[in-house]
């Protein structure tokens, strides 16, 4: 391809990139971070607006007035729940039938891979209850879902009460054109997962459940409700779903519209602030960081998160009751929900007009994908520059006087040029010296992924630990063992160019990392950005000369596990509930267990991604650092 461009000018550019490599890398890294910080300021952040025509101009009049009824239902529910110790299925069935729904139940059971100590469950079996309101205006082709996840403790009874009161109110209306499914799930997210899998007749996670008796067509949107008090000071909305998926921004706009209309205080993480002073952007940054951390975790933050896999736009509304003067009762919440459902009922098409990929510095402000992607792009550019310089150096080693005609111009790690060329360079080194470290690090990753769950019984037999602890400790042990392994079993290193071995390995590692981070940033920006911020500097610096201990410390501090630990501290710091070191460690262990569990129960991809992808890649850099 070089035939069509002027080799002289390209060589000049290559030389420039090579000479200014270090300053360019620093500049690019700083630019990436600065761009991210600048996302909260007005030219980059915009006010949200409704894109969907069907939900925009027509205002609906909310008539819900069943506050007392909702409270009565909630009291009954709580009483029955306390009596039976589990979800009062018979009572729910009776009540739903009495408000005129078509009621079905679904039983499910699931044996978790190891005991879940946070939720105290292992062999889970439960029953979901759902009632369908058949729309008089259509033939059950589309539906909306209102769901309340019920955990093991007796929270959320107000949400069940409000759900039943809303069902009774909705049943008396004639304007419904989409069926409405009122779903109460047991064991919160596990129940939701079981119901969703049965509804779509798939089995993703190995859940055993009875098939559904009643269905209502394609689900268009879903709202999950979590309320644990009769009055709320504000409604918190959670959008981050499984693997960082987000619902269409219009659903959020809809919620915000009705909260403003009903003067029901809505919030996204933190209280809304005045945007004109400096406090607004600062708080926006705090909110943005919280969202990035939550999205990066890839776990469903509320039962809405599981709906997103099935392309059902969904969000969770969480009632917050804090010590403030202004409180709203269930009627206000019910009215907001009624308005949302009526507008969703107007929908002609699935929600698709607005953004699917966005970041939220506040409820009423968003950053679109086109504006936040440069932040990740700048960070990846560092890797691109490093790859190009390393390649230049290697080619330079190979042909001391020759014209090294290749350079990566704009940090595009996917361009075919450097890889094919560098493969030629690798051949010079002898692929054998690279195969061993690559294989060993990948094998470590595989062991990290498979062994903890597989070997928990062996571990509990030989050590005095419980299964969950065994899994976490095995995880940490394998992780640490990876550092100690002798990876560099290189034999054939040419004497005239001793540097070539580690340079080739680093080149491969850099390309591997750039590819992975690029793909992650495209699907889950938050995770990609977070990992790029931490892993890129250490990856760029790693080499077997110079202050090795410093590099080693930096590399350990930016390993995926350390990033997780750091994120936990940052997370609590942002929530204004700082952690002590011991608490942080406990939380870290719990987070590890949760991560593994969520992979097995809901199909979250963070654990396999870290263990099979980023950890081996990181080990390669460790290997480069201790190259003999």
């Amino acid at each position, binding site marked *: 391809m070089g035939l*069509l461009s002027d080799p002289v000018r390209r060589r000049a550019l290559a030389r420039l990139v090579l000479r200014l490599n270090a300053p360019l890398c620093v500049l690019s890294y700083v630019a990436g971070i600065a761009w991210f910080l600048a996302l909260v300021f007005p030219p980059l952040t915009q006010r949200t607006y409704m894109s969907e025509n069907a939900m925009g101009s027509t205002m609906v009049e909310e008539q819900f007035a069943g506050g007392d009824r909702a409270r009565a239902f909630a009291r009954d529910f709580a009483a029955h729940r306390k009596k039976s110790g589990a979800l009062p299925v018979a009572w729910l069935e009776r009540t739903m039938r009495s408000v005129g729904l*078509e009621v079905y139940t679904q039983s499910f059971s699931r044996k978790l891979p190891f005991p879940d100590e946070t939720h105290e469950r292992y062999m889970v079996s439960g029953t979901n209850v759902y009632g369908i309101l*058949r729309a008089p205006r259509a033939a*059950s082709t589309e539906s909306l879902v209102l769901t309340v996840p019920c955990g093991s403790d007796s929270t959320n009874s107000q949400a069940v009460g409000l759900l039943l009161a809303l069902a009774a109110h909705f*049943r*008396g209306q004639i304007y419904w054109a989409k069926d409405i499914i009122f779903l109460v799930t047991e064991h919160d997210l596990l129940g939701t997962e079981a119901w969703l899998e049965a509804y*779509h007749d798939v089995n993703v996670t190995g859940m055993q459940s009875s098939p559904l008796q009643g269905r209502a067509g*394609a689900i268009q949107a879903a709202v999950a409700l979590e309320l644990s008090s009769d009055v709320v000071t504000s409604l918190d909305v959670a959008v981050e779903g499984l693997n960082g998926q987000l619902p269409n921004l219009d659903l959020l706009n809809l919620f915000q519209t009705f909260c403003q209309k009903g003067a029901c205080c809505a919030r996204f993480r933190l209280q809304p602030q005045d945007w004109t002073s400096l406090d607004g952007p600062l708080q926006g940054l705090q909110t943005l960081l919280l969202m990035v951390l939550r999205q990066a975790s890839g776990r469903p933050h509320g039962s809405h998160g599981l709906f997103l896999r099935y392309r059902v736009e969904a969000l969770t509304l969480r009632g917050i009751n804090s010590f403030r003067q202004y409180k709203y009762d269930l009627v206000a919440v019910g009215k907001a929900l009624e308005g949302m459902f009526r507008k969703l009922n107007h929908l002609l098409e699935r929600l*698709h007009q607005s953004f699917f990929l966005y970041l939220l510095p506040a409820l009423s402000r968003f950053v679109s994908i086109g504006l936040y992607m440069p932040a990740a792009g700048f960070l990846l550019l560092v890797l691109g520059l490093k790859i190009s310089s390393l390649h230049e150096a290697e080619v330079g080693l190979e042909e001391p006087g020759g014209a090294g005609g290749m350079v990566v111009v704009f940090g595009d790690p996917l361009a075919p040029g450097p890889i094919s060329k560098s493969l030629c360079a690798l051949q010079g080194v002898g692929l054998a010296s690279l195969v061993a470290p690559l294989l060993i690090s990948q094998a470590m990753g595989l062991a990290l992924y498979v062994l903890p769950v597989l070997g928990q019984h062996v571990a509990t037999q030989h050590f005095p630990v419980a299964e969950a602890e065994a899994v976490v400790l095995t995880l940490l042990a394998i992780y640490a063992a990876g550092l100690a392994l002798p990876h560099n079993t290189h034999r054939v290193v040419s004497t005239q160019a001793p540097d070539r071995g580690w340079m080739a390995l680093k080149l491969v590692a850099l390309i591997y990392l750039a590819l992975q981070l690029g793909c992650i940033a495209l699907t889950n920006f938050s995770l990609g950005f977070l990992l790029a911020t931490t892993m890129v500097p250490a990856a760029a610096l790693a080499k077997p000369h110079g202050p090795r201990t410093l590099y080693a410390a930096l590399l350990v501090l930016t390993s995926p596990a350390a990033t997780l630990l750091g994120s936990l501290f940052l997370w609590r710091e942002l929530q204004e509930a700082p952690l002590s070191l011991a608490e942080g460690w406990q939380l870290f262990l719990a987070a590890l267990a949760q991560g593994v569990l969520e992979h097995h129960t809901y199909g979250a991809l963070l654990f396999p991604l870290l263990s099979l992808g980023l950890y081996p890649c990181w080990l390669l850099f460790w290997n480069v650092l201790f190259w003999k």
Partner: protein
Amino acid sequence: MAAAMPLALLVLLLLGPRGWCLAEPPRDSLREELVITPLPSGDVAATFQFRTRWDSELQREGDTDHYFLRYAVLPREVVCTENLTPWKKLLPCSSKAGLSVLLKADRLFHTSYHSQAVHIRPVCRNARCTSISWELRQTLSVVFDAFITGQGKKDWSLFRMFSRTLTEPCPLASESRVYVDITTYNQDNETLEVNPPPTTTYQDIILGTRKTYAIYDLLDTAMINKSRNLNIQLKWKRPPENEAPPVPFLHAQRYVSGYGLQKGELSTLLYNTHPYRAFPVLLLDTVPWYLRLYVHTLTITSKGKENKPSYIHYQPAQDRLQPHLLEMLIQLPANSVTKVSIQFERALLKWTEYTPDPNHGFYVSPSVLSALVPSVVAAKPVDWEESPLFNSLFPVSDGSNYFVRLYTEPLLVNLPTPDFSMPYNVICLTCTVVAVCYGSFYNLLTRTFHIEEPRTGGLAKRLANLIRRARGVPPL
């Protein structure tokens, strides 16, 4: 929710076996009837039927040629007054007199279930079938929802349902009757009371169970003349409990399983709730071509075992020309659920083939189930001309079975849809990318390269060469 049962039980009678109508029918006669059926949930179903017959000059020639048989489905039709008005105009009395005065659009469309049908069929005029009459039968079924229209009360009257009362029969009608289902569900006492008290009752076996109907004949002058109008009222003596409605012997459910926009599966669940009788069902499926069915994935399982259909007819789809047609005869074991599933791949349409609202999804028509369902009570074969019209909705074939045709729900399937909000951006971008890639590759592949000597000299050298060529000496 009472609408569920009729929803699954959308039964439409099309062409029946010709043996039913061998007797010579009266011509140009209108028979009209209204059947009011209180449902166990407290809702009320009302079914209108109008039948007209007229002679035609056409001679009947042999059997129907099945080559000309066509089947077409429009999976979605939003029913509104535009459907009702022309339908009413087909009636001889329009909506001026007779039962059709009750057909008031604003009440009929405030119901939880609405079904409207027109059937036309030829009827033999004599035993040898040398001449035929045409029969036009119009039916309209609605279910009034106790929750929505009744404001919680479960007592009903004609006036409350239709905001009209009956005043006179249609002058052209040879028969004009209202039937009210007063079957007692319990032995000890009657559950509901009808006012005014009926003069006659009628008993028959409908859908395999014995039913009792109160008859109000509008042609009976005493019925109308007493008060100049007839407002039939239903009063529940014991309000019905909120319990699940009884399940019919045959019902079906259909859904799309799977997620994502590449593949999916069409599943149909056929329920046979009869405790001890198995019966065959004819399943007819038409699937649009843009769902590419994989016939090798067709699986039929009942009670966990594979169920081999005794007859399969499959006609593959042709893109943009005809849909898939799949017809199967399946034996449903007693008290079982049979799952018929087939996998499909979603096709990419051309960008002009998408409907105006492509993200709504595409409809897949309901599958049609035809079955002879065994009845609990043996029924006598009846004379079709004498018995009420609604009786022939579920014709009994041999006393122990009755014929049912069910339509499952239509499905909504999302196809991979391009983002139509920025077609220009997409087209421009792809065109540019293709042009750049193609251009440079083409250039590389077709150009021949040769090393060009750096040009020295210039004009003087060229002149010198010209002279040298003229002299026949090799150039510099």
